[in-house]
């Protein structure tokens, strides 16, 4: 199975790096960045499939970053990493800003399940964007 390409955004560098290693052991193609500007640069430089974004990022809340990311690439499927579930996160899912959220501390099995579902959503968005011409615009 082609595991998702994942970009994890969390200012807690040790947490992010450890989660990336755990995902890569499970054959995901995961990388981490530690701030909103770094995340936007990464998205502009290279297409991402799934992003896991911490809600409480210094300088720019995760929901604002999610909006900025979707403007650069509307196919990225975003999972919000949050200390607590809230009405807001449910609203963001309803509005299509994010596809899911996961609570801290993260259970790795739960996270990988959500990443797999998010990758499916990303792939479906690519098909819709390309008008059913095939994956990532290839006829």
């Amino acid at each position, binding site marked *: 199975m082609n595991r998702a390409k994942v970009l994890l955004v969390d200012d*807690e560098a040790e947490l992010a790096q*450890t989660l990336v290693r*755990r995902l890569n*052991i499970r054959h995901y193609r995961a990388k981490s960045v530690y701030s909103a500007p770094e995340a936007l640069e990464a998205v502009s430089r290279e297409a991402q499939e799934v992003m896991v974004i911490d809600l409480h990022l*210094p300088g720019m809340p995760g929901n604002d970053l999610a909006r900025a990311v979707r403007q650069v690439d509307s196919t990225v499927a975003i999972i919000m990493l949050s*200390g607590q579930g809230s009405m807001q996160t449910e609203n963001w899912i309803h509005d299509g800003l994010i596809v899911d959220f996961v609570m801290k*501390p*993260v259970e790795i099995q739960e996270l990988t399940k959500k990443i797999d579902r998010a990758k499916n959503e990303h792939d479906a968005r690519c098909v819709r964007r390309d008008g059913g011409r095939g994956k990532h615009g290839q006829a």
Partner: protein
Amino acid sequence: MGVENTGRPDQIHYQKLFMGTILASFTHELRNRLAVVQEVSGLQQDIIAVDRTVRDLSGLVRTLRSVDEHVGNALRLISVLSRFAHRLDTEMSFFRVQEVLEELIELVKRSADEKRVGLETDFDPALPPVSGDPARLQMLVFFLLDESLCSLEQGGSVLVRITEHAPGIMIRIIPRGPRHTGGGSGGRCPRDILLSVAGDIGAEVSTGGVEQETGVLLRRREHIP
């Protein structure tokens, strides 16, 4: 604040806001520490499950050091919150302003970090104790700090300085760096409420000077009122 809530009705909403913000910040920080502990120990289990043995002993030692450090930080934070909570045990007591504000600053550091504004302190360690309500003083300084933090652009900093200043102790909150345009204090608690809290603890609040610093003069009392 104290054991019995003697706060005026117009202050109570802000007392709740103060406590709620502190608790949210504390639980956020504690959860982050424990999340790292969970992840690094999970990673070690993953590595052992793949390798079926501990091949990378230095990696294991690094993991254990990291766990030790994060648990230590979590315990230190719990001690700070515990002291903070016990400030509410009695409404009037002798206390050292520098200790009371060190606790507060430890607990608001996270929200300053989120705003990308630095928090610095310059406390005279030799200041004598004062009498009064330390919890109410923490609330007052918390909202004055909030005003300063909200007034600054990212990259700014707030200096909190405590010095002896007859007839008491002066707490100065000095914002530094570029300000948000549009004016207004931007703080979450109106000044009239803060002035009433200050009045309750015998403190005087003034704002002015080139850096628009806020001063809180805490008058020294010889005994507990």
